[in-house]
């Protein structure tokens, strides 16, 4: 016998009417509605998703891909325009924790209010009150109004209430971006425990490492569609391919054009495999990759420098190098830039940018957007680089 899924999203679409076209009183009365079909926007279309009890599923996608809409539908705060959303059990959203906290109320009072919002009875909150306070690490401040709480305390208390409300479905939206590292670790552990106890978890995050750590399965949303649903590793690779595609479609976004001197132009910035020159967005660790771009010189430059920066998804500069362009450049000159780089990187998302700078670090040119790529790492390697340590165990 197959168990019914805890979450069943069946052929779901959600259409929004653009804000400027929402009716006003007068407009409505006079039927001045300019609400044509053009102003409708499908935030989600024909989405299907089934999640079983105790599963932890990640949802990844760019901003505006429909992630938040999906979460709102799962939380039940909005109804689908078409299709059916079915959720069995109590849903607790961790979407921006601290929902319903009243600033004038004390931490203690807010725990009771939030608990009640999440469907707990007074007695149930009594039972777990100590554990909540203990988990949130706010012992000394339970009777202080939460408006005097630090943002960390606020978030910790919100997280504690949501997790300890012991929901059937936990919706997590970027919550891992908050709190210090120790608290984040605690949250991870707690979520594992909650999951083992049978709670279904849906995680939406831009932090792909967090997704990889928590979820075996992930769905990739793109332009309101579920483009992929399956193994998290594959999902992340698919997500990066999509990032590459959209950038080509978006074309020049004009990034950095305003702050550059305009003395040169870098275009057709691409990442290719060094051995065959094919464009790629997923890089096997340890292979040689090549960044290439066309450089067009508009004004004379006496001493330009080329710089390559590689950033980890956490914002850490993994590697940067600046080299002088010997002999300067003349106006009208065209060059092809190639930078070979061994991808000694651990698994994760990275971005690379190529810049042409002057002596005093003035920016002469930058490509319209950095390149985003995903490194398929080796199992067991963590961090930002893969330095290929060798382990030996010798008998003594």
């Amino acid at each position: 016998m197959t168990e019914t899924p805890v979450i069943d999203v069946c052929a779901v679409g959600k259409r929004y009417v653009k804000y400027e076209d929402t009716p006003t009183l007068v407009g409505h009365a006079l039927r001045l509605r300019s609400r044509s079909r053009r102003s409708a926007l499908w935030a989600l279309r024909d989405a299907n998703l089934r999640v079983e009890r105790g599963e932890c599923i990640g949802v990844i996608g760019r901003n505006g891909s429909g992630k938040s809409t999906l979460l709102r539908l799962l939380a039940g705060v909005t109804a689908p325009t078409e299709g059916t959303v079915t959720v069995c059990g109590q849903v607790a959203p961790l979407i921006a924790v601290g929902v319903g906290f009243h600033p004038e109320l004390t931490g203690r009072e807010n725990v009771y209010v939030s608990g009640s919002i999440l469907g707990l009875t007074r007695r149930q909150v009594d039972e777990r009150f100590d554990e909540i306070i203990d988990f949130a690490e706010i012992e000394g401040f339970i009777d202080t109004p939460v408006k005097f709480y630090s943002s960390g305390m606020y978030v910790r208390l919100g997280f504690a209430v949501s997790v300890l409300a012991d929901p059937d479905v936990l919706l997590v939206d970027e919550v891992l971006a908050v709190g210090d590292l120790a608290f984040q670790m605690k949250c991870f552990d707690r979520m594992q425990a909650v999951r083992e106890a049978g709670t279904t978890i849906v995680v939406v995050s831009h932090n792909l490492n967090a997704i990889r750590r928590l979820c075996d399965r992930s769905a990739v949303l793109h332009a309101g569609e579920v483009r992929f649903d399956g193994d998290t590793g594959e999902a992340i690779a698919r997500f990066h391919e999509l990032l590459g595609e959209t950038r080509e479609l978006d074309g020049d976004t004009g990034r950095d054009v305003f702050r550059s001197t305009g003395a040169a132009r870098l275009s057709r910035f691409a990442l290719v495999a060094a051995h065959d020159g094919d464009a790629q967005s997923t890089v096997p660790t340890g292979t040689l990759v090549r960044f290439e771009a066309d450089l067009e010189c508009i004004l004379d430059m006496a001493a330009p420098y080329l710089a390559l920066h590689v950033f980890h998804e956490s914002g850490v500069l993994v590697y940067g190098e600046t080299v002088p362009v010997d002999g300067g450049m003349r106006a009208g000159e065209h060059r092809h830039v190639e930078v070979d780089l061994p991808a000694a990187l651990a698994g994760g998302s990275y971005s690379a940018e190529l810049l042409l700078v002057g002596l005093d670090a003035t920016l002469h040119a930058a490509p319209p957007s950095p390149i985003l790529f995903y490194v398929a790492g080796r199992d067991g390697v963590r961090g930002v680089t893969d330095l290929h340590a060798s382990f030996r165990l010798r008998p003594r």
Partner: protein
Amino acid sequence: MAAYRSRSARAKGFSLSGPSTPLPELVRGLWDARDLLALLSRKEFFVRYRRASFGVLWAVVLPLLQAIVLAVVVNRFVRFDTGGNFTLFVFAGTLAWSFFSQTISGGTTSIVDNADMSAKIYVPRALFPLVVVGAGLYGLLISTLILIAFVIGAGELEPVRLLLIVPAIAVLVVLSTAAALLLSALHVYFRDMKYLVAAALLPWFYLTPVFYPLDRIGSLHGVVEANPVTGAVELLRAATIGADHGWAVALWWTAGWTVALFALAAVVHRRHDRNMSDLL
């Protein structure tokens, strides 16, 4: 964790397709959230006086002051033959009017004010105007007790007549609830509602027999009689110093308005409950 597996009584799970929420489901949702309603109402009321040194005492002093000032001022210009204590006459009127006006002005914006919560977690949106009503009940209870104390103090006590205070308060609360439910939902879609209500309250006050008897308004009598609040004011007055002439008609109007407002509120909430957060 296993110890917590006994779950709450709240209904769990949902299946959504299409925009409207069946009415029985809405009512059940509200019923399931009754503990939350009580909790939020209590907090809402007490939070208001939290940082004030005199605290809840203000809830006693303000309505009293309002009635006395109005009685004194009006008395300087006109003498109405109210057949009893004029301050008491005005107090019964201001009590009903303040509850009604505060409930609908607070109620109108309630769903929008709670947008933050609405966008994150589902409770029937009708809960928010109900919380405004619930919080108002505390003040109403205090005012009513003062009113009764006044009735006794003024030597107007007639126990049987005073029993009418129960249906009087009930009519007032039910009418205000119906209006708040409808206006709160309309305000989500038409943000002019808040200002319309604010603008309407001033003439509305003068068209309500708060400081004059129902039969002394002349040509506007028909309008005042059809005013939904009139019936509630008159019933409350009937309970304290005896009603004005012709109050029964006003009460029928009130009943009619209440039913109509509830019906409209049900239609709007049924149709838009789940999708209100799209506009918040």
